[in-house]
């Protein structure tokens, strides 16, 4: 198969190993082909069978999270999930990781993470309406952290701002376990007409395969394999595997694709993400049970003398592969000419079942598609349940001062305001942002209608580390609660599962249990997982990150006149709805103040969660609650402080008689803070009593300070400064 014009590197089991395939996987390749592969073919196998593309370690367990409901239009397996939101519209969304590239080159890694997830959304025919980003860094004390924060935040802003999609939420988190393996999980939500969703399944032998978007260069080659390996000291030499983004081209590609989608020419469409042309063409052909023929000479290239394997594995950004109806080539080309984007017919669909690649008029690779996909390795990795360490306190508790503890917590890296981050993101462009960053959930109006989507992202990796199943369940429940808080009916979630090396049984155990937790919560709450992504091997020199099953959730608001916000009014009464236990295991209070190292995260009671959530949602929809905030990390006092800072009005509050100082910092789940005018007091108390929802009158909105009778008085000014100062100071010093 090789000739003088297309000389290829020699192939041996060692070549396969260097490309990330095991010896047994290499033998499988030979068995499928009935011969030794050439180098290009081997590269294609290594990309397609990488953890990133094949989900070989997680597939077995992902399949168990199969709960869907009647609103789901498209579940996992496509570029993004699609859910019906009524009025002929659908929400299209997904979250994806770009962890390894962002550590190697924070600006480009994060920027192209945003670019990739945006393409996943508009590939489906949806116009993106919001971006969110969950970014997790190492300890602030670690030398590289500041540089990474600076680059990642600038990269996310640089890309999203230019494309003109508002970045409206996310999380920023610090923990030493991410020192050398940061996480960048990007989520995009789009809106499409529910009967005009585009899929990747190809059909129609003879239909042309079109390449549009940026030219192909040598950036990002072997990116998928790199993303599937642990880091070690050779990290700096991996920089060329990181792609370089161009948001300007993305904006043009977005507009051109959406314009093309308005005409009736597209059969299927797929963005070139991980493993570029390889995985996109394979996916299209394999879903359509067809063959595909590609002439690599027709692929627009930005560098000269690129080899076949380079063209096939390049992860150059802002590219799309489209199958269109035969005879419609000119119509399509006109649109891309208008947007001044490269357009090339690079091949066609065949009935051979093979992928055949030509270069310089000869065949450089010929691979059977079906077995390469169906016989992709799937591993049943050994796994070990996370041991539930003794939760009894061995240490004597210090007597604490509420005021000092609160100030310390509010100014800690994870609880301090993240304004420094989101001020660098355009969160208002498109003029639909009704609630932006820094709230329970973002609220984005849909096409200037009375409807809006609520969007949130959640995960507490400390909880997941203490108890993976419970922690993952909590992440789903919290995202559900955050949607309720703004008055949205929760619809569905996407997940981005970030873990260490699955070949280690204890890590595989975290994965398995986290999936079990997500499964349980999504089934109980009727909150299906409609898309997702898995990022494994997040380890450096053998040390894994905290298990981080990041959840992104979307809900619907039917009337934007009935939204609850994190703003209260003078003289309103403050209530906590939900059970106030004292649960301090894995809490912020324990980490920062007591340091007992208790490992059991707070319990999640899905039955109570649902009952209280539905009650609160109904009341918001009727305009009874206009202020609502969930109690999460840091406990009730932190949530109250956030409301006071946000509203610029203080409060006078008191804990139940006889409760300890710790009561204020408990992280018991399923709790909401709401406020009401005094005249509604009886209604609220009677109604909650009738259906047995715990309802505790905490105090009153009042004055310029946050006061606990005889215990604490902090001026709003001090509260705000304390909360907002840490991050800007950290970044400028």
């Amino acid at each position, binding site marked *: 198969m090789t000739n003088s014009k297309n000389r290829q590197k020699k192939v041996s089991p060692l070549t396969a190993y260097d490309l990330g395939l095991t010896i047994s996987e290499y033998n499988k390749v030979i068995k499928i082909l009935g011969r030794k592969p050439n180098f290009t073919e081997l590269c294609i196998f290594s990309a397609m069978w990488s953890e990133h593309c094949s989900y070989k370690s997680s597939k077995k367990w992902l399949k168990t999270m199969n709960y869907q409901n009647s609103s789901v239009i498209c579940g996992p397996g496509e570029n993004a999930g699609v859910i019906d939101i009524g009025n002929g519209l659908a929400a299209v969304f997904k979250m994806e990781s770009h962890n390894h590239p962002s550590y190697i080159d924070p600006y480009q890694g994060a920027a192209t993470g945003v670019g990739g997830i945006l393409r996943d959304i508009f590939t489906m025919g949806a116009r993106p309406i919001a971006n969110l980003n969950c970014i997790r860094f190492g300890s602030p004390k670690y030398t590289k952290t500041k540089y990474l924060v600076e680059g990642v935040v600038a990269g996310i802003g640089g890309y999203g701002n230019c494309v003109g999609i508002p970045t409206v939420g996310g999380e920023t988190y610090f923990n030493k376990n991410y020192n050398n393996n940061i996480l960048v999980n990007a989520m995009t939500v789009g809106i499409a007409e529910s009967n005009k969703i585009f899929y990747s399944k190809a059909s129609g032998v003879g239909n042309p395969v079109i390449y549009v978007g940026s030219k192909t260069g040598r950036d990002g080659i072997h990116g998928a394999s790199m993303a599937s390996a642990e880091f070690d000291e050779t990290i700096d030499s991996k920089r060329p595997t990181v792609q370089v983004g161009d948001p300007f081209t993305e904006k043009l590609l977005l507009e051109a694709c959406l314009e093309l989608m308005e005409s009736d020419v597209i059969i299927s469409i797929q963005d070139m993400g991980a493993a570029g042309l390889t995985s996109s063409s394979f996916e299209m052909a394999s879903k359509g049970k067809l063959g595909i023929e590609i002439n690599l000479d027709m692929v627009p290239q930005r560098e000269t003398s690129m080899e076949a394997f380079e063209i096939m594995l390049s992860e150059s950004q802002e590219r799309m592969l489209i199958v269109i109806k035969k005879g419609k080539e000119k119509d399509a080309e006109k649109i891309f000419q208008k947007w001044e984007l490269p357009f090339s017919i690079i091949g066609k669909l065949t009935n051979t079942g093979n992928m055949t690649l030509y270069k310089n008029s000869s065949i450089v690779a010929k691979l059977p598609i079906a077995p390469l996909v169906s016989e992709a390795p799937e591993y049943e990795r050994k796994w070990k349940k996370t041991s539930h360490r003794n939760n009894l306190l061995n240490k004597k508790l210090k007597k604490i001062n509420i005021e000092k503890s609160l100030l310390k917590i509010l100014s800690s890296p994870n609880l301090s305001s993240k304004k420094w981050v*989101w001020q*660098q993101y355009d969160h208002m*462009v*498109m003029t639909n942002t009704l609630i932006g960053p820094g709230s329970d959930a973002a609220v984005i109006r849909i096409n200037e209608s009375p409807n809006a989507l609520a969007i949130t992202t959640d995960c507490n990796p400390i909880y997941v580390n203490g108890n993976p199943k419970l922690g993952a369940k909590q992440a789903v429940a919290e995202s559900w609660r955050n949607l309720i808080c703004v008055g949205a009916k929760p619809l569905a979630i996407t997940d981005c599962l970030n873990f260490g090396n699955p070949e280690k049984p204890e890590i595989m155990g975290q994965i398995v249990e986290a999936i079990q937790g997500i499964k349980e919560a999504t089934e109980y709450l009727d909150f299906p997982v409609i898309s997702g992504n898995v990022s494994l091997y997040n380890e450096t020199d053998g040390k894994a990150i905290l298990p981080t099953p990041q959840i992104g959730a979307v809900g619907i608001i039917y009337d934007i006149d009935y939204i609850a916000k994190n703003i209260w009014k003078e003289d309103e009464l403050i209530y906590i709805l939900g059970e106030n236990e004292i649960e301090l295991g894995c809490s912020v209070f324990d980490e920062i103040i007591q340091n007992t190292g208790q490992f059991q995260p707070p319990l999640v009671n899905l039955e109570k969660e649902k009952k209280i959530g539905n009650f609160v949602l109904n009341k918001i929809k009727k305009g009874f609650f206009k202020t609502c905030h969930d109690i999460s990390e840091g406990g009730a006092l932190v949530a109250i402080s956030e409301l006071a800072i946000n509203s610029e009005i203080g409060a006078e509050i008191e804990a139940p008689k006889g409760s300890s100082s710790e009561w204020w910092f408990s992280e018991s789940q399923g709790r909401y803070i709401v406020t009401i005018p005094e005249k509604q007091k009886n209604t609220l108390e009677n109604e909650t009593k009738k259906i047995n929802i715990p309802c505790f009158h905490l105090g009153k909105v009042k004055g310029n300070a946050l006061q606990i009778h005889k215990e604490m008085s902090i001026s709003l000014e001090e509260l705000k400064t304390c909360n907002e100062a840490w991050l800007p100071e950290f970044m400028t010093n």
Partner: protein
Amino acid sequence: MKAAVIIFPGSNCDNDAKSALEKLFNAEVSMVWHTDTSIPKVDLVILPGGFSYGDYLRPGSIASKSKIVEDVINKGKKGTPILGICNGFQILTETKLLPGVLIRNSNLKFICENTFLKVENNSSIFTSRYKYNEIINIPIAHHDGNYFADENTIKKIEDSNMIVFKYCEKNGSISKNSNPNGSIKNIAGVINKSGNILGMMPHPERAYDKLFGTVDGSKVFTSLLDKLLR
């Protein structure tokens, strides 16, 4: 009212401007593509925010050489009201229709936040509905909004009452603290001498509906009505 919004490759506030005009007074808005050679006869031309041509070279510089901008210059010189918002302001300085330049923010970062502005000139066609020295709240979102000009130019624009908006504190004081991007003299918006071309970094089209938390930007558009109805 008839208006035209120019779309460059990379413009991303074009639809926001269109929506604002339609919502505020049911304006008839034509969207004009950058390769067109002429703008229809309208009462207002908007150069919208965004990243025309990816901000490559310098923000606004490539757009200032595009085909349609020749007609923008033409119409501007003949007195058609022209409003450049954010990237549009950058394009207007690049075409020299407005004095000065917009350089990188002094903190070298993109900044998106609500800012307070003081109306320094309420006699223009874009600001007649504001009170003199009124303090208004309009958001900014830019990476290169640091207004700069040499001393002579500054003196000239001050003497000719060409400074329309300045960044200020909530109470109206013009301080260093209230200057988000390092602009000289806290300048946020400038109008040409003949009074028909306004460039401003803040986004009035993001501040016309109480849903967005502020309606203070709407008068930039509604002031024009007074002129048209006169």
